[in-house]
């Protein structure tokens, strides 16, 4: 089998300062100190809420048609 390309070393996005950080076991952001998991959970909850609101809006608009 041919030699593989260089597999990227992964980073994760800090939802506090929007910088990428290393996945080196640290729980807080190396740049802004945000709790990475807590900020991610809050972000997920916000996304879920936005999707729900968008769906409601679509249904309401469809109902008006």
């Amino acid at each position: 089998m041919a030699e593989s390309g260089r597999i990227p070393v992964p980073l994760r996005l800090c939802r506090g300062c929007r910088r990428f950080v290393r996945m080196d076991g640290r729980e807080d952001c190396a740049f802004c100190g945000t709790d990475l998991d807590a900020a991610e959970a809050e972000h997920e909850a916000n996304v879920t809420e936005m999707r729900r609101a968008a769906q409601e809006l679509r249904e309401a608009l469809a109902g008006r048609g």
Partner: protein
Amino acid sequence: MDARRADALPVRYAGLDDIVNRVPVSVVWEITLACDLACSHCGSRAGHRRRDELSTAEALDLVDQIAELGARDVGLIGGEAYLRKDWLEIVAAIRAAGMRCDLQTGGRNLSEERVASAAAAGLCGVGISLDGLGATHDKLRGLPGSYELALAALRRVRAHGLSAAVNSQINAYTLPQLRELMDVIIEAGATNWQLAITTAMGNAADHPDMLLQPWQMLEVMPLLAELAVEGRERGLFLQPASNVGYYGPYESVIRNVLDPEIYFHGCNAGDTVMGIEADGTIKSCPGLGSAYAGGNIRETRLREIWEKSEPIAWNRRRTLDDLWGFCRTCYYAETCMGGCTWTSHALMGRAGNNPMCHHRALEMDRRGLRERLVKVKDAPGRSFDHGEFEIVVEPVPAHVLDRIAVDG
């Protein structure tokens, strides 16, 4: 990645499977070095044909070899690709082999007839170079009137239903005009805008006044982030080249392709990108010079060059020990590996220490410092050559600090 999102991504987007299997997803092929413009930043110093460009039969055979490696996207460049008499045969062969084919052009002589013939041959899209507004573009492209010719070509491409993109250089002349240029590009109907920092290679190495200084990344990246968000709302998708970056608070905004968690993961030369010169020389990236040439298809089959040649393998085999200067101890070293090989080599004479980096400029700024490049050696005057620069580290001048205080 879910299937729906994968379907929506551009075909030149390389996923993990492509990296593992080293699929040359995106092949950039200079089919001739003949050119009808005289750009002051041209890395290949195009103008005349190379002495020994591939024949039609050799080019068509190369198309088959590219397809055998699993490539998905072939971008034709020059010089000016349409100056090669058989360019439409090459386009048709690429499409017949199941690959996407785009043309990157200055657009000076991309006539109605040429666009119509290209569309009939199966060309998928055209990227037109627009470097600043009017006089700035004309100056950089070395031809009065070339700006209007490029815009007319862009509109022609749209009229024929081809995908229309614009390529722009970011340099000392164009940076102040990017915002206004975006309005022009949107008005002309382009849907993609690729931006690259002018690299100190070829003709650009002879014009250090044109090059951005490392500390200007503090201005470039917030601006690109603004333009990326606004462009997307207006139907223009901004695509930073791999020499634009890296990290900092705007990485996610400017580099995401339907996914905010996409980030720069290092130079992909020789992993998912291949460059080809008009004489059949195979390189790991179209911008790199002869030190990165893996062989010539006149002597060796493409697969063998791609899989076995040392200059092509260089990128995937290097380690942190190949980094030096700031990049050697950088927080992002393992992921970034010194950013764009082309940029670093052209400035510093070897890869692994790239001063054109946002994270680096931010770190310097945090310490009240900035880096300035000073040219210390001229380029010899060959295609894809470079000079040499030294980095001067200096305190941020007082007038800049004053401006920051005023601007907030």
